[in-house]
């Protein structure tokens, strides 16, 4: 096959992986099987893109000195990149494909000469290497902040947590009037459309996320920028692209330029994705090339070709310069001490920072969590929300359980099954205290915190009114909420016997079901704080658990 045909093959590959990515993202939800076991587990390789991601693997290995479940498979991308260069960016990466699509939209502001100019190598393309260096150093010091900028993390967080819920909302807004229509045909159509969509892409219950608008606007901003500047994100910020660019230094595949036949017509620059100087007369920049092969196809003189073992002038490694290298290293070195000298981690931890079940101890958590939002996407109760300041600046967009929006189901372990890095370590329902079937053996269940009563708001405590919905919902057995009958006087002076609820801290697992069910929805009279969470030896109430 002539190399000029390769861009077509590349497009097929890009579309395939983009669709695969969205399919896996949509499958990242609870779908109980129709038969067989009553256990509910994650089905399908929804973590696939993350475990293939060498940036996640390398940074988390630097931070934790180990490779979590499946991350070894990132070698599938890393090793071929060593030999072939950044083919991943041009052929596979769904974030790259979206950038590519946005950049291909016709625009008055970017045609002909402007387009050629914008696709020439720019000095700011080295920013991504500075970002990568800082991220690598920070992860070596134990902070995974770089995960925020990982392209899959960015995509899942933006699409899964912000855009898909918005699509869900819009689709429901359209379908609902149809479903409630008085015209039979329309009603039938609406019902079927709704049922079909609910079985595939829509959720039964509309999910809501804090900061969804911010996440969406950032993502849309990146796509908008890439309409102006080809692959703005890939060229300037993406730390995964930088990593793959850096490791392709010794790759054996490269761009052969036949300098004698090149008449500098600039056609190769029109569609160049990487900004890697495919044109004759200047050295090719290996670390910037995304192997999209557009230049090969667009050269009218067939002067360009990808060849193995060529011996030509090229700029193999990133043109970073000493000053920028030092900047990156210094930023990484300074980031962790600066972030952690703040309050928040060791002292005055936010009392409402409830981590998902299976989460490792907070310091370790921050050295693992890449803020991808997979856990938030999968949570069937919409309990997990991205933090703003609860986990400190370092913990921005890490997951926290918000019982008011949803409690943690004692049998559910989906978040621990999708977490790519083990910030939420994979656990079994049994570890959460779930005893199904004939099992009787019990161990100390994972606890997320402890519930407390606000006796100034609780109906039986403060308002002389019967309630104890919290006790009804408490899912542990024996119940962690117990009641005591007490005589209260109502406003008319009459004596009343009421059941007043209390918490047994040795039984409470901090799931938040009581807080979720409390009739005082604006500020529940029972609420969970993180004290007593089993992951943290320093955050305990009781001297000894029974």
């Amino acid at each position: 096959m002539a190399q000029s045909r390769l861009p077509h093959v590349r497009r097929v590959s890009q579309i395939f992986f983009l669709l695969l990515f969205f399919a896996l993202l949509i499958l990242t939800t609870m779908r109980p099987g129709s038969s067989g076991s009553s256990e509910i587990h994650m089905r399908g390789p929804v973590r696939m893109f993350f475990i293939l991601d060498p940036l996640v693997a390398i940074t988390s290995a630097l931070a934790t000195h180990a490779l979590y479940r499946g991350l070894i498979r990132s070698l599938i991308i890393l090793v071929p990149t060593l030999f072939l260069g950044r083919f991943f960016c041009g052929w596979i990466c769904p974030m790259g494909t979206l950038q590519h699509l946005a950049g291909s939209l016709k625009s008055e502001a970017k045609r002909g000469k402007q387009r050629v100019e914008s696709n020439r190598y720019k000095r700011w393309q080295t920013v991504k290497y500075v970002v990568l260096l800082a991220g690598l150093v920070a992860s070596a010091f134990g902070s995974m902040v770089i995960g925020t900028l990982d392209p899959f993390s960015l995509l899942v967080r933006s699409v899964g947590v912000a855009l898909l819920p918005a699509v869900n909302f819009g689709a429901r807004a359209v379908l609902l009037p149809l479903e409630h229509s008085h015209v039979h045909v329309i009603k039938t159509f609406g019902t079927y459309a709704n049922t079909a969509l609910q079985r595939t892409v829509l959720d039964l219950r509309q999910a809501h996320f804090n900061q969804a608008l911010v996440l969406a606007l950032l993502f849309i901003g990146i796509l908008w920028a890439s309409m102006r500047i080809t692959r703005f994100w890939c060229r300037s910020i993406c730390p995964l692209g930088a990593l793959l660019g850096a490791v392709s230094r010794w790759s054996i595949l490269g761009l052969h330029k036949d300098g004698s036949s090149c008449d500098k017509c600039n056609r190769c620059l029109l569609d160049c994705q990487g900004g890697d100087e495919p044109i004759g007369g200047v050295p090719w920049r290996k670390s910037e090339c995304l192997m999209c092969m557009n230049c090969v196809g667009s050269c009218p003189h067939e002067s360009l070709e990808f060849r193995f073992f060529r011996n030509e002038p090229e700029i193999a490694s990133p043109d970073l310069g000493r000053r920028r290298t030092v900047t990156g290293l210094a930023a990484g070195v300074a980031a962790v001490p600066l972030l952690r000298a703040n309050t928040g981690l060791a002292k005055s931890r936010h009392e409402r920072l409830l981590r998902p079940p299976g989460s490792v101890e907070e310091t370790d958590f921050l050295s693992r969590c890449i803020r991808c939002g997979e856990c938030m996407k999968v949570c069937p109760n919409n309990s997990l929300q991205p933090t703003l300041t609860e986990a400190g600046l370092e913990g921005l967009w890490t997951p926290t359980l918000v019982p008011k929006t949803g409690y943690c189901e004692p049998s559910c372990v989906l978040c621990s099954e999708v977490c790519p890095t083990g910030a939420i370590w994979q656990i079994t329902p049994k570890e959460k205290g779930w005893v199904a079937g004939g099992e009787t053996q019990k161990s100390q269940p994972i606890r997320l915190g402890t519930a407390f009563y606000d006796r100034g708001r609780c109906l039986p405590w403060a308002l002389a009114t019967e309630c104890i919905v919290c006790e009804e919902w408490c899912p542990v057995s024996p119940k962690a909420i117990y009641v005591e009958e007490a005589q209260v006087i109502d406003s008319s002076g009459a004596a009343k016997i009421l059941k007043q609820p209390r918490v047994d801290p040795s039984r409470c697992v901090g799931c938040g079901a009581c807080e979720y069910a409390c009739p005082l929805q604006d500020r529940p009279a029972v609420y969970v704080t993180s004290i007593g969470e089993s992951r943290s030896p320093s955050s305990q109430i009781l001297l000894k658990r029974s």
Partner: protein
Amino acid sequence: MPDTPKPDTAAEPDSLSRREAMLQILRVGGVAAAATGAGFWLNSRSTRPVPSSAEQVRKDHRIPSASDWPGLAIAQFPAENHSAEQGEPRTLVQKVIESLGGMSRFVRAQDVVVIKPNIAWDRTPEQAANTNPELVAEVVRQCRDAGAKRVIVTDVSCNEARRCFHRSGIEAAARSAGAEIILPDPDMFRDIDLGGVMLKTWPVFIPFLEADKIINMPIAKHHGLCGVTLGMKNWYGILGGQRSRLHQQIHQSLVDLAGFMLPTLTIMDCYRILLRNGPTGGDLEDVALKKTVVAGTDPVALDAYVAKAYWNLDPEHLPYLQLAANRGLGTVQFEQLAVKMSQLS
């Protein structure tokens, strides 16, 4: 834009032709008239928003009482020192329905039947927080055999619904028996005037409003606030909205619900009952195997019987029973009904 030849400015008159002027007046006038009309119309529409009035759709699903059949049918296997066996719940429910005159007494051809088991919690059948799936499946099958057009199994769960429907085993069992499973879609509720003493306007899940026949299939469980949760408490599961408020006046709320939902038949699952830590349970030690199914057309007598039989609670301990009897929903004196007891072996 291609260059067009400049029009000869000298030949251009200073003002529009009469025809063009008329057209322009018509256009402007039309827009002005439309804007004015729309303004007055919208102005006249401005009324203070009030909640839309609730519908009154109370339906009586009961069948005429017949003296040839017992008021209460009980079937049981010996449970002491026995373990649960597959097929037993099915035999039990077949027996009680047969004692009551067969399903054809309750369900007619072309009926839309809604079966309301308890599917409130993320619990397995062994944990006895939801109705036994085998029981539900058999009732579905009998309704189909009686010629029902649609047999719907649904509930408004407390825990996440898909999880409850799956884990309870009811979704799979009922579907394979030929039922339609409807999950509680939050948009499928209508504001209904329940006409109760405490309960006025509440969102009710639509399938319960569109049924011809309704079969209540509760499970007998311990409950922290009332002592027990039986048949009438199962009607919590027709409501949406902030139903946790019902606990504030639980007895009156139960009666209001029972006064709104008048079922064709009640079949109480006492195959396993939850003795402690109800209504959620979770520990198998809270569960007692009773291998019993109780059915009848009098919801009050049914609750009174089961409360007495398994918790030794007299109607005095359960104020809602007397309130319901006063309302004419049934009798607390179950002993006075014809009781058909079948001991199976």
